[in-house]
């Protein structure tokens, strides 16, 4: 049996029926990793010994019988900006190439407490800054659907690992679309939960007020399972929300009769790939056929979201990344004095995109520019939030394309940072507003997956998942597997 093609729910069933052991499942994942990793390059670190140890422990737990957590014994991958005690966390950066955190992120604690198995740490754009995973300080990850193309970013490794069947689930982080954009490019399901739904403790910060950890899976039910496993208030993260965690799988139903879906016209912009537009329109017709009420809405401040994002995110990053100075941890460059040591450490350790964003953010916060840039960006952010609040008085969810195009070729946008930034134009508003956003596969263009994005109200992941689930039940895009060449 080709275990790696199974969904989380299917593996659960096999494990409970003792038809397969966690060790076998984990071994199958590593066999698959061995096979496809040379082409896809989704992982920075393989955790073979740790994973097999956890697998044996999960087998022991399953052997006892009784209720086990839904993720018990299911192999997954974490993006390399989440800490696992004793395992390198590079953040895709040379400056942290040897950094081994002495502590577990809250998501790690939760996953291990539920006997999940973590098989590796995924490649990413350095410090989660990028939309293609080409900004990794180590190597680019390839799109399993076309190895000449990017998987999207910044969580490209996490997404590619799931799309290439290297793991059943993964965690990514999404600051401006870093889960949803690659999910769209690689034809998998990716969710950015409500800001504060999942603890950020142990997630290496890029932009603290926007960063959010979320699940990557091959279908919506699996997404609901992983979300349930990692959500909840965390006293270690003051920005996490004190709200009970519902059983997200219980919310999944095909019935979206009477649900109000808004189509924000500002997201259907010129320059969008016609195939993408067609796929989204097809999805909308299906929702109508299912009895949903679809209305066009306006979110007038959308066009300023990208600009506001690149001020706020870079400003926070300039401060968050100040700690990589060669003093306490990470790469240290040689210097005659403290200043030259700082300069060498940071110049050698950070790649060009990270350096660009640190400079942008430093500038935006500088005396004399703060009001014109940072403060104005905060005001725009407030207006974008208000756009969402207003529109959610009228509709239950919003539906948009996840990205204006499908995946592009490696190197295509490397010298055009602005073109690269434009890839996030549809995803960024959800980060600024803090609302949940889901990307699910909704079609193909020239053999490359297209993503459909669903925004929901604050803390209303259930409705977002329900809409995604309803669409998925009526289609089979999520059951197609990437045709890895030469596999």
């Amino acid at each position: 049996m080709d275990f790696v093609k199974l969904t989380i729910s299917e593996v659960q069933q096999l494990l409970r029926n003792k038809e397969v052991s966690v060790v076998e499942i984990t071994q199958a994942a590593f066999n698959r990793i061995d096979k496809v990793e040379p082409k896809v390059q989704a992982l920075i670190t393989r955790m073979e010994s740790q994973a097999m140890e956890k697998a044996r422990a999960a087998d022991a737990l399953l052997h006892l019988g009784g209720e086990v957590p839904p993720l018990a014994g299911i192999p997954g991958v974490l993006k390399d900006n989440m800490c696992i005690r004793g395992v390198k966390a590079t953040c895709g950066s040379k400056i942290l190439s040897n950094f081994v955190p002495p502590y577990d992120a809250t998501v790690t604690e939760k996953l291990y407490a539920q006997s999940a198995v973590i098989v590796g740490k995924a490649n990413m754009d350095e410090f989660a800054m990028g939309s293609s995973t080409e900004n990794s300080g180590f190597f680019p990850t390839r799109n399993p659907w076309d190895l000449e193309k990017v998987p999207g970013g910044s969580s490209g490794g996490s997404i590619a690992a799931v799309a290439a069947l290297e793991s059943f689930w993964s965690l990514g982080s999404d600051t401006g679309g870093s889960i949803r954009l690659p999910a769209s490019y690689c034809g998998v399901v990716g969710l950015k939960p409500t800001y504060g739904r999942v603890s950020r403790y142990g997630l290496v910060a890029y932009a603290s007020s926007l960063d959010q950890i979320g699940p990557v899976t091959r279908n919506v039910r699996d997404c609901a399972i992983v979300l349930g496993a990692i959500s909840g208030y965390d006293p270690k993260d003051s920005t996490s929300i004190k709200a009970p965690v519902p059983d997200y799988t219980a919310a999944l139903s095909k019935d979206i009769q009477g649900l109000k879906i808004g189509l924000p016209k500002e997201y259907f912009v010129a320059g969008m790939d016609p195939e993408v537009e067609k796929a989204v329109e097809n999805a909308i017709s299906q929702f109508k056929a299912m009895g949903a009420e679809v209305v066009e809405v306006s979110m007038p401040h959308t066009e300023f979201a990208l600009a506001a994002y690149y001020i706020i995110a870079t400003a926070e990053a300039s401060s968050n990344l100040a700690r990589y100075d060669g003093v306490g941890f990470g790469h240290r460059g040689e210097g005659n004095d403290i200043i030259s040591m700082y300069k060498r450490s940071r110049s050698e350790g950070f790649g060009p995109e990270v350096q660009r964003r640190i400079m942008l953010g430093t500038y935006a916060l500088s005396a004399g520019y703060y009001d014109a840039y940072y403060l104005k960006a905060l005001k725009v952010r407030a207006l974008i939030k208000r756009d969402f609040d207003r529109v959610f008085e009228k509709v239950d969810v919003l539906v948009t394309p996840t990205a204006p195009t499908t995946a592009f070729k490696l190197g295509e946008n490397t010298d055009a940072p602005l073109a690269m930034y434009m890839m996030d134009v549809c995803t960024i508003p959800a980060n600024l507003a803090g609302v949940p956003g889901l990307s699910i596969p909704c079609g193909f263009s020239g053999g490359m997956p297209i993503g459909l994005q669903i925004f929901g109200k604050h803390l209303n992941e259930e409705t977002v998942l329900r809409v995604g689930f309803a669409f998925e039940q009526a289609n089979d895009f999520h059951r197609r597997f990437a045709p890895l060449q030469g596999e």
Partner: protein
Amino acid sequence: MDYEIVIGLEVHVELKTHSKIFCGCSTEFGMEPNRNVCPVCLGLPGVLPVINEKVIEFAVRTGLALNCEIASFSKFDRKNYYYPDLPKNFQTSQYDLPICGKGYLDIELEGGTKRIGITRVHMEEDAGKLIHSGTISNSEYALVDYNRTGVPLIEIVSEPDIRTPEEAKAYLEKLKSILSYLDVSDCKMEEGSLRCDANISLRLKGEEKLGTRAEIKNLNSFKAVQKGLEHEAYRQEEVLSEGGRIVQETRSWDETRGITLSLRSKEFAHDYRYFPEPDLVPIVTTPEWIASIEASLPELPDARKQRMIKEYGLSSYDAGVITASRPMADYFDEVVSLGVEAKTAANWLMSEVSKLLNASSTEIKDCPVKPAALAEMLTLIAKGTISGKMAKTIFETMWESGKTAAEIVEEQGLVQMSDESELIAIVDGVLAANPQSVADYKAGKDRAIGFLVGQIMKQTKGRANPEVVNRLLKQQIEKI
């Protein structure tokens, strides 16, 4: 030309919470380097701060004691600058919305009371400590001790209402007194738990506009605050009266040379790029909570001083000295509650007790003679069992041996001689032996009596009751 000095103080106070401001690490002073640390205060990648609620409570207690407005909405900000003792290369502090706004503090001056405005009180984290292998400029390397990183601080900023270095010292002493009454800090300048930076400028008398100021750092004691400001005022006056201009800069007080030295000028001043700390949520206080903190405040020095004047009839000066420190005032209250007359208790505290405390650098809370023991001894004086003079020697013995006054009196046979028949013989003997003194006294030289008393005390090893001796001397001289 007649200049007026304008001074404002920025005082950093380490709060004596058990744990640090954003993590659970201990704040204990004097630990082995890098023992009180964790991923959070080391600023490791991925960590997040969580505010220690006690810090907010201590800051609000301080604000209320300083008559400040307490903010209903306050937030933390990041102050960005690179320094190796600051692991995140930003300090989490408060910028435009501090926890406490305008308030004031009254200081006692010779001419009366003066009110000094408080601009704000805000919370922030302390940095670590650098240990250089040599001097700061020639060290081959420096080591970092992060034990202090994340220890909670409040910064108390005064209005530029202070006019003399003496006022600055009085302000600081009063502030320390209030903070120790509140029990929010150890206030030890030598351990750095109370640190003072001073802004000082000069302007022509009558001028409204403030002059260009210098900020003085490294003022590590009350004396340094006064001396440093005195010198800086003198320096600025020299510059101005020679037609020069004051440069806005940071200067450091050099204790040994007794001068201030330029540290960095404004052109090199940091742009701290403050922005709201995204990892912490704003602090919202309710009037009920503030009222509950206010209700729990102890009696503060001013109120206690007034009570001592009113209840015990102490002079304003004595009451001020006694109430300057809470442990001293508590000690006093306990002695008085055991039946000792208040003035006597105050005198002893301010003289003999303080003298031995200072000589041995002991704090009153560690005083080997406990209030009950002192009260017992003072009662022996009142009863006439011992003289005040004997008491001083007995007190020293109590201090050293830990014995009670009664035990010492018993052991050394120090009971005061008040029996007239016994004393008359000695008085007559001394008079017979010193006819010249008797003659002097009779000739109107009152001082001669002192010599005679001394002779009697010598013979009785100080045990003679001085009152009785005086009376008997005069009586017996009359008879000669």
